[in-house]
């Protein structure tokens, strides 16, 4: 694929001696949303962390657009166009909402970025002087996404964004993510356990098991029942 925004080739990642990802391949096209599904401990979060540089990779390459990010540090990857929304949100709880968003902005911070973000998440505009730690879970998740978007990324990584969030907010988040993709031409890789959310937003669903992609479905004929068989314990 020539228009791939994110290309992962033969990625091996290990914690000490125990290898978790054994040669993973993945290609994310421009404007595509991929949902990465899998049970606990199958390597979803590991892949996300390896992509943003929180975990070192043993072997293989990762590319964003045409930039090889395999050897780069986290902040250089962000500058190269990757943005990351960590599991558990991990916002800076003692900083205000606005400061949280600004930490994500690159050096040439433009107020137009803030305006765009507040337009996507009006609730954050209301709360912009509040400390991040005093927001509700759903609001914190929006803040974490806003912070990631502040770096104007090409590829957005979301690690289990629906964890611990009430269903109505999950549906809203799905709408927002699709809107971001449509408006900003983003490519999104989201790891998920909630099947309905994944089916709602994804163009393609991948199932990861023991560090390898074992199943893939795309387009209109995504078969929820089949995927859920992979997820049942």
């Amino acid at each position, binding site marked *: 694929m020539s228009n791939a925004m994110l290309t992962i080739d033969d990625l091996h990642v290990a914690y000490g001696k125990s290898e978790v990802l054994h040669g993973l391949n993945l290609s994310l096209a421009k404007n595509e949303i991929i949902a990465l599904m899998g049970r606990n401990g199958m390597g979803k979060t590991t892949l996300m962390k390896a992509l943003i540089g*929180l975990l070192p990779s043993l072997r293989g390459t990762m590319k964003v657009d045409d930039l090889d990010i395999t050897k780069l540090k986290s902040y250089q990857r962000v500058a190269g166009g990757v943005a990351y929304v*960590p599991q558990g949100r*991990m916002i800076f709880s003692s900083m205000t909402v606005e400061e949280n968003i600004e*930490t*994500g902005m690159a050096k040439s911070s433009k107020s137009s970025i803030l305006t765009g973000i507040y337009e996507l998440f009006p609730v954050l505009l209301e709360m912009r002087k509040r400390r991040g730690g005093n927001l509700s879970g759903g609001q914190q998740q929006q803040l974490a996404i806003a912070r*990631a978007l502040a770096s104007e990324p090409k590829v957005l990584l979301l690690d289990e964004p629906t964890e611990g969030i009430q269903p109505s907010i999950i549906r809203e988040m799905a709408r927002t993510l699709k809107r971001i993709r449509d408006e900003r031409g983003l490519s999104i890789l989201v790891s998920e356990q909630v099947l309905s959310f994944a089916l709602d937003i994804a163009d393609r669903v991948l199932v990861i098991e023991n560090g390898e992609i074992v199943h893939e479905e795309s387009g209109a004929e995504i078969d929820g029942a089949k995927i859920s068989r992979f997820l049942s314990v």
Partner: protein
Amino acid sequence: MLGGYTFTDLGSIFVMQGFAGLILFSVFVLMALGLAIIFGQMGVINMAHGEFMILGAYVTYLTSTFFQAHLPGLFSIYFFVAIVLAFIASGIMGLIVEYVLIRHLYNRPLDTLLATWGLSLILQQAYRTIFGAREVGVELPQWMLGSWHATESIEIPINGMIIMALTILITIGVGFLMYKSRWGKNVRAVVQNRAIAGAVGIDTEKVDRYTFGIGCGIAGIAGAAFTMIGSTGPTSGQLYIVNAFLIVVFGGAQSLLGTIASAFTISQTQSTLEFFLSGSMAAVITLLAVVGLLMLRPQGLFTLKVRR
């Protein structure tokens, strides 16, 4: 009555001791500010902080002798040059120490403590070798000497007022840097979560290095101020490091406002008591009070209330 003092005398004593306390407070604040940035923000216990301060004091001493020998005409303003040089010297040394030593130890607080303690011994010996074991004093220009007679019985030293003005300036500067500037935002983000700060695009290594450098630079300024109230020896820094740590912990490690409030409380208690009791009794009472308060409020005076 009242141990032979009249009420007017006592009033003047309180004002003057209060002011002496304010000068002590100023040096404490300068020292604790640097420490609060390094310890409170980065979690690094820098036992060599006193030596960074003394480096600033020696730089001030060198500047004053240089001005005396080569630029006697400009001697009256040497102190301001010395402050800048002290900041630069201690700051650069801080950057080097961070690069060579500290950055390898960020996840090992106890090792940092040992390493910086070793560093403090090395620096003390280096000062002894370079400047000699005898304490050196700086000569102040004429206009900084003397005092201002507020009333008949109240005298306030001019150099004390200069130190205070300097402290206020630096404090405002640090406050601005930490809470209004982009750099401060990055520092606070790195403090809260180093890994995630990197993952949102902050160059955490650079932030760490400059934070440490600026903290040390401020210690250098404290050293410059220190030359006005005491003489500088290789181990002078040791006398202040314990108090400075006390202030930072008592004030609540991550709060600059807490640092200032606690420096004020401790220095005022100390200096007012010192007049009536011996110096060591004053220190004992201050310490007991701090220990007691920390037992009631282990997180320090000021803390942020947020959901974690």
